[in-house]
């Protein structure tokens, strides 16, 4: 069974079961944030997300977010097969079903998602992503924090597989707990500082799909990374 909303943030556990900051404090949901402030931040997040063509879907809990991820993968256009020198043969790819990568889910959540994928005929994988650097319709990951004023999702401390999946997929589905959305970078500062205090970390601020304006300044999505970013906003805000 999927963990209940809040299981990661509120207990200070990251998606891969590690503490979000060295001293075990819950950083993602700022204890000082009132429900009104959180409601306001969530509203702002949604508004700003629309401005950078991030699709926000609201779901009651993590299982619903996972359902959406499986459905998005199933309905996606076939991902382009890019030349990566991977050992897979062309025939394998031609016959392969749509794929969804979800490297950093807990075992229980992964099992749940695998069930959904099976129903929809989607192949689910955890990794190793280095062998699957293209032809990936979607990837699911969990964000630790949302910064409303720039519609930014903050991911940290993921495994390399999780980072790679979020880059090489065509649609990136990011689960974000509504209660973890704060107003702006300033409000997320304590989180960032704690994250950078760790012995090792790769923290990613993600605010939309991969984009470029390098040819005649025409905005084009999906240059290296995902063509689409979907944020599944989980649970009620301000709890």
């Amino acid at each position, binding site marked *: 069974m999927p963990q209940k909303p809040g299981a990661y943030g509120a207990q200070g556990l990251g998606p891969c079961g590690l503490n979000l900051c060295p001293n075990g404090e819950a950083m993602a949901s700022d204890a000082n944030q009132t429900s009104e402030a959180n409601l306001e931040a969530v509203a702002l997040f949604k508004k700003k997300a629309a401005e950078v063509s991030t699709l926000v879907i609201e779901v009651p809990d993590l299982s619903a977010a996972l359902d959406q991820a499986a459905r998005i993968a199933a309905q996606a256009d076939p991902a382009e097969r890019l030349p990566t020198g991977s050992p897979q043969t062309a025939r394998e790819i031609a016959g392969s079903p749509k794929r969804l990568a979800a490297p950093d889910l807990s075992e229980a959540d992964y099992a749940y998602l695998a069930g959904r994928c099976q129903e929809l005929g989607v192949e689910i994988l955890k*990794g190793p992503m280095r062998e699957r650097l293209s032809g990936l319709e979607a990837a699911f990951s969990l964000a630790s924090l949302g910064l409303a004023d720039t519609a930014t999702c903050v991911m940290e401390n993921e495994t390399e597989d999780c980072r790679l999946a979020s880059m090489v997929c065509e649609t990136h589905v990011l689960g974000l707990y509504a209660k973890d959305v704060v107003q702006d970078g300033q409000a997320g500062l304590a989180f960032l500082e704690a994250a950078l205090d760790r012995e090792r970390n790769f923290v990613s601020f993600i605010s939309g799909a991969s984009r470029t304006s390098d040819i005649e300044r025409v905005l084009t999505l999906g240059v290296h990374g995902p063509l689409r970013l979907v944020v599944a906003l989980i649970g009620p805000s301000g709890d």
Partner: protein
Amino acid sequence: MADLLDDGPEPKQLSPREYRDSLKEALGDTFLRKTLDKFAVQYKANREAIFSGLEEKGLIAEVAAMKDQSIDRLEDLYEEFRAEASRKGMRVHLAKTADEAVRTIIDIARESGAKRVIKSKSMTAEEIDLNGALLEASLDYVETDLGEWIIQLRGEGPSHMVLPAIHLSRYQVAEEFAKAAAAPAGPHGDGPVGPGDPPGRQAGGPDRTPDGEDIGKLVKVARRQLRAHFVQADMGITGANFAVAKNGAIGLCTNEGNARLTTNLPGVHVALVGLDKLVPTAADALKVLRILPRNATAQPITTYVSWITGLPPSGQSGSVGSPQKSLHVVFLDNGRLDLAKDPKCREVLRCVRCGACANVCPVYRLVGGHRMGYVYIGAIGLILTYFFHGKEKAKQLVNNCVGCEACKDVCAAGIDLSGIISEIRARISESDGSPAVSKLLGLVMSNRPLFHTLLKYAKFAQKPVATGAYVRHLPTILLGDHGFRALPAIANRSFREAWPEIEAQDIAPKDGPRIALMAGCAHDFIYPDQLVAAVKLIRAKGGRALFPMEQSCCGLPSQMMGERRAAEKTALGNFLAFTEARFDYLVSLCPSCANQMKNRYPTLLAGSPGVSAEALESFAQRVIDFSTLLTQVLKYFPEDFTPARAPNSASGPVARASGAGGLPKVAYHSPCHLGRGLGVTGPPRALIAMAGEYLPTEGEEVCCGFGGTYSLKFPEMSSALMERKLEVLEASGAERLVTDCPGCVLQLRGGEEKRGRRLPVEHLSEFLARSLKPSL
């Protein structure tokens, strides 16, 4: 195109003539002109929108203050970073010079056995010409930022710090992609695709390059080709936007996400970082992040910001093929530590490389980045060329600045870019000796009696060729490239000659404020009528006009030419002459003079014998521009005017009175040194609206191209700036153009005269004095 960059690390120095020829060539590139024009207009609008509701100047000041503190202790910050990062397993290097940085990086590649390198955009790598060195060391490298990849295929350097390929059209890009696709497959041919492969899953085989019409398809080609390079690379080189000392962490901003792949896929990651990117804490990095993307591309934030500390978790248990990563941070000095100790120019190190100073620069807009910097582009490019690449490479470049201050006004870090550009000119002319012309100019300008005598002779000398207000019939051979505007004649009687009479007319001086007039050369000798009009306006409200006879040129032209001594000498002469006249306000109808006296005298005269700091400060405080004097000191209101019906200036026919209520439609040109230099934008527009119908037009604040001595050095640039402006104004439906700077009047009136379109151009003082109620 990229003649300043193409010749590799040691391009030949262009002579002034060659440099001007390259400018002319760029001016003829219509695609470039159109693209950069469109960009300039859109950038301005987008930037305004993204900063709306934010305390823009406050954010900039915060970055400036934080950076200044960091610049004070760069070496400590480096030490702090090194200790923390090393403890976390990163390898930290410090390279004193560009060569040393190159060697360090090549050594890292050798040690790790890397053969294939991918790069994510880094201006610092361009600064040390890393690409040339990689090739020499037989290391294959591929740029992964789309724009950088395009110019790599073309063998060019970037023409903009943020949009490196902005000078190219989609068709040129398509052509390069076609060539690249026709070349033998990349380093690692992919498995063949079976005939039964469904569409959308095709792989391998040469790309069928789209014809260029569809940019989306071009981007797809890049996605496909570059993905292969990412996978095969064994070393990734990036820059960094921040190096956080406290945590030993680096931060990278990209929109494409190429830096995330470059840092994650290869086993070795090298970040090449200028020492100036060091900030004390993550909070400080966030200060920069709040303004950098907004100023660079009018985005609230870049799509990706990656923060890396220690050796990021790589691989997962059971995953194969993810090698243990190594992460090197190579800090580059290359003159930065010396610059940090340079009291006049150290603020250059505040730069966060947003590129905005190019986006708003009228010179950049005309000729593009390859003519506006050696590696770095725009105002900061002119400056960094001098500090990082030496005087010789900077010599021609630093002259190609019209001094409009648009860059300073927009800078994310509040750097006085235009001021530093003149400082560099001064340094170059001090070390090289000045060119004969500017030395002569400096000599004449700093000797008031000599200067004024010469002007008197010039008046007689022009007799045979001057008719009315213009110098006509000058043999074209004398004018050469300068014939794009009619040149005004020197007035029959200068203002100083007329002053005793004007002074005597004030039979009953009121005890209103004592207002000292700074005539400036243009008003004194070319347009004394504009000053006479100002005297009328001052007296009408009870002000007392004074004219200290010992005043001379404000010194700006000398400073623009790099003649620092001459500029100091004239500044001192004026300071003493005006101080003696005991004034409440010192007004100049020329905002360049006012700006010079208010904002530059305090630095120029600091420490001069006999000039106390308090006296200087009080002097600068009392310098005021003309329209602020009228609105705030003399308190002009709409009821003081009967709106103008017909100009009596010699410049044009009677204007049709066709605006609202029969008022003439009046367009405004905002002089650079007024709108930006002195920050005065409201009062002149308000005054125009009191005496006519103010008609806002596009780009009111864009430089007219006069720039004092600039128009003499680069006439083709000056004329291109002017033509563009006049085209917009003529199409706007305006019946008259008002501005409040004699230089702008000279340029725009002269241009209109030449164009024969005859949009009357006048100084605000003339416009207002003519409309003054008779009772006043």
